[in-house]
C-alpha cells in the first residue's frame, strides 16, 4: 500500500507536503507545459506588493559553492494586476494556493489584504517579513513592527496567515512574537543575507549583496526549525536547500509539517516531482504508513 502523504496545515488539506516556495516558480502557472502542477502539494506565489516593482538592477544572481546568492528585489506586477490577470490561472490546478505578500508598513499590508479578502480561492497568505534585498531594513529585525503587522492584518481578514521569518539568531524570539500576534503558521526560513566579492582590481572589487539559498543553508535552517518547533504551538513550513526527498524528510522529522522548495526548482522544475516521489519511496522502504508519523519525530526522542 502506498503511504499516506496528506497533511493538514492551518486547516487546509494538502495532498502531499511539498510546495514551491515564493519567487522560484513565477506566478505559479507558467510551467504547466513542463511539469504536472496538479501533483504538487501546493504553490506559494512570488511575493506581491501593493504597487508594481521593477526590482533591483543587475547583477541579480551569483552562483556560489552549493547555492546561489540572489538580489532580485521583489520584482512583481502589483496586487491589482496579479488578482486580475494571474490568480485565475493558478487556481485552475485545484491545489492550495498561498499568496506571498510584502509591504513597507502596516497600512500597505492592510490595503493588500483587503483586495485579497474578495478572492475566495486563496488558501492562505504568506507574509514575507524577511526579504534581505530591499532598501528598507528587514521587517523581522523590528519585533514591534512584526507584531503590529500581524495583529493589524489579523483584524481585517479570515484568511490564514503564515509569517515567513528571517534565519536570524533570535528567530525563536521572532517566532514567539508572531505567535502571540495571532499568526496561524510559520515559514522557516527565508534566504540568508550574504555577499559576493568580484576579485578583480580593474572592477574595483565590486560587491554583490543578496540572499543565500540552496544546499549550503540546509543544515542551519533545519536547526532553526527544530529549535522553534519545540517552543511554538503553530505549524511550520520548512524551507532552505531542499534538493531531494531525503532533505525534505530531514525537515519534516525536525518539525516542519510542509516543506517548500525554491532553488531546486530553478535548476529543474522536475525536481519538485522527484522530491515527492522520493519521499513516498523512503516512507515505503521504512514501512511508515503516513507522513504525519514522522513530523517532529526528532523532537520526541
Amino acid at each position: 500500500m502506498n503511504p499516506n502523504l496528506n497533511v493538514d496545515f492551518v486547516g487546509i488539506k494538502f495532498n502531499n507536503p511539498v510546495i514551491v516556495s515564493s519567487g522560484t516558480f513565477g506566478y505559479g502557472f507558467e510551467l504547466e507545459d513542463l511539469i504536472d502542477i496538479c501533483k504538487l502539494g501546493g504553490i506559494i506565489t512570488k511575493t506581491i506588493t501593493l504597487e508594481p516593482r521593477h526590482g533591483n538592477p543587475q547583477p541579480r544572481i551569483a552562483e556560489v559553492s552549493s547555492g546561489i546568492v540572489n538580489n532580485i528585489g521583489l520584482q512583481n506586477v502589483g496586487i491589482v494586476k496579479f488578482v486580475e490577470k494571474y490568480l485565475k490561472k493558478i487556481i485552475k490546478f485545484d491545489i492550495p494556493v498561498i499568496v506571498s505578500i510584502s509591504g513597507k508598513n502596516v497600512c500597505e499590508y492592510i490595503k493588500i489584504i483587503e483586495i485579497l479578502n474578495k478572492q475566495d480561492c486563496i488558501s492562505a497568505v504568506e507574509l514575507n517579513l524577511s526579504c534581505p534585498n530591499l532598501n528598507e531594513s528587514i521587517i523581522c529585525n523590528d519585533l514591534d513592527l512584526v507584531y503590529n503587522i500581524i495583529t493589524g492584518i489579523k483584524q481585517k481578514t479570515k484568511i490564514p496567515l503564515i509569517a515567513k521569518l528571517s534565519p536570524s539568531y533570535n528567530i525563536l524570539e521572532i517566532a514567539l512574537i508572531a505567535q502571540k500576534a495571532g499568526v496561524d503558521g510559520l515559514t522557516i526560513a527565508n534566504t540568508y543575507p550574504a555577499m559576493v566579492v568580484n576579485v578583480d582590481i580593474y572592477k574595483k572589487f565590486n560587491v554583490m549583496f543578496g540572499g543565500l539559498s540552496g544546499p549550503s543553508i540546509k543544515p542551519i535552517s533545519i536547526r532553526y526549525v527544530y529549535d522553534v518547533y519545540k517552543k511554538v504551538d503553530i505549524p511550520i513550513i520548512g524551507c532552505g536547500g531542499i534538493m531531494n526527498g531525503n532533505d525534505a524528510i530531514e525537515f519534516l522529522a525536525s518539525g516542519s509539517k510542509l516543506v517548500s522548495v525554491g532553488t531546486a526548482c530553478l535548476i529543474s522544475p522536475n525536481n519538485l516531482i522527484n522530491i515527492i516521489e522520493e519521499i513516498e519511496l523512503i516512507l515505503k522502504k521504512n514501512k511508515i504508513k503516513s507522513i504525519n508519523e514522522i513530523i517532529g519525530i526528532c523532537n520526541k526522542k
Partner: protein
Amino acid sequence: MPKAFDKNCEIISNDMINRNYFRLKVKTYSALNHCIPGQFFMIGIPDVFLRRPIGIYNVENDVLTFLYKLVGYGTKKLSTIKTGQLSLLGPLGNGYDLKKIENLKYVAVVGGVGIAPINFLANKLKNKGILYYGVRSKHDILDLNIFKKKNWEIIISTEDGSEGYKGYITDLLQYNFDSKHILISSGPNLMLNKILKIAVEKHISGFISFDVKMACGLGNCQGCAIRVKDEIKMVCKDGPVFKIDDISFNL
C-alpha cells in the same frame, strides 16, 4: 512555439575546435527541426550547481549541436565531459523572426561566440547576406562554411590585426550601413551597445540576441532581467532575441 523538454541526452561528441572553443553534439530522441535560431538550451553539467544557457549552433533531425566558449568554471568543466549523458532543458526563449528577415537585405554583425546562433540562422535563410565578424585574433575564427556555401559576403576584423581589419567590427559599420539593411546581431554586450547606438543614429531596424547569466532559463527566477524601454523583460523568456526598436537603452 516548440514545446520544451527536460531530459537526459546522450553525448555524441564534445570536441575542441581551437584553444577557446568547443563543439558539443548530443542525441535527443525526437526530431528537433522546429527549433528556431536564437533559441537556447539550459545544459546541466555534473558537479556544477546551475545549468548553463548555450545557444543552438545547428539542428539535424535528432542531433543537436552547440558551440561554446570556455568562459568560466561551468564551461571548463563541460569541456572535460566526453561521454555519457547531459541533462538538457529546451528549446527555450524567442529566436530570430525568420519571416521578418527572409526577404530583406540582411546584415549580420557578430562578435566571438555570437557566431553560434547566426550560423544556425544562415542555415535556415535561403538568400545570401553580409557577415561582419569580429574576433580577438585569427585563431578565434570559427568555421564559416555555411556562409561561404551560401555566398555571403564576409568581412572579418581582428583586435590584433592578424587577419582582416585591425580593430573592432563596429568601427566598420559606421560607413557601410544604412536603413535599407536589416541588422541581425549577436555577441558581447560591449559590442551590442555600440551597435545599438549606430542603429539608432542611422534608423536601422533588426534583431539582437543577448548573452546574460541565467539561473533557470524559464522566467522563474527573474535573474536575467533587463530594462527594455520602461519595462523589465526576462532575457530567457522574452528574449534572448529582441527587436532593436524595442531596446533603445544602455546595457
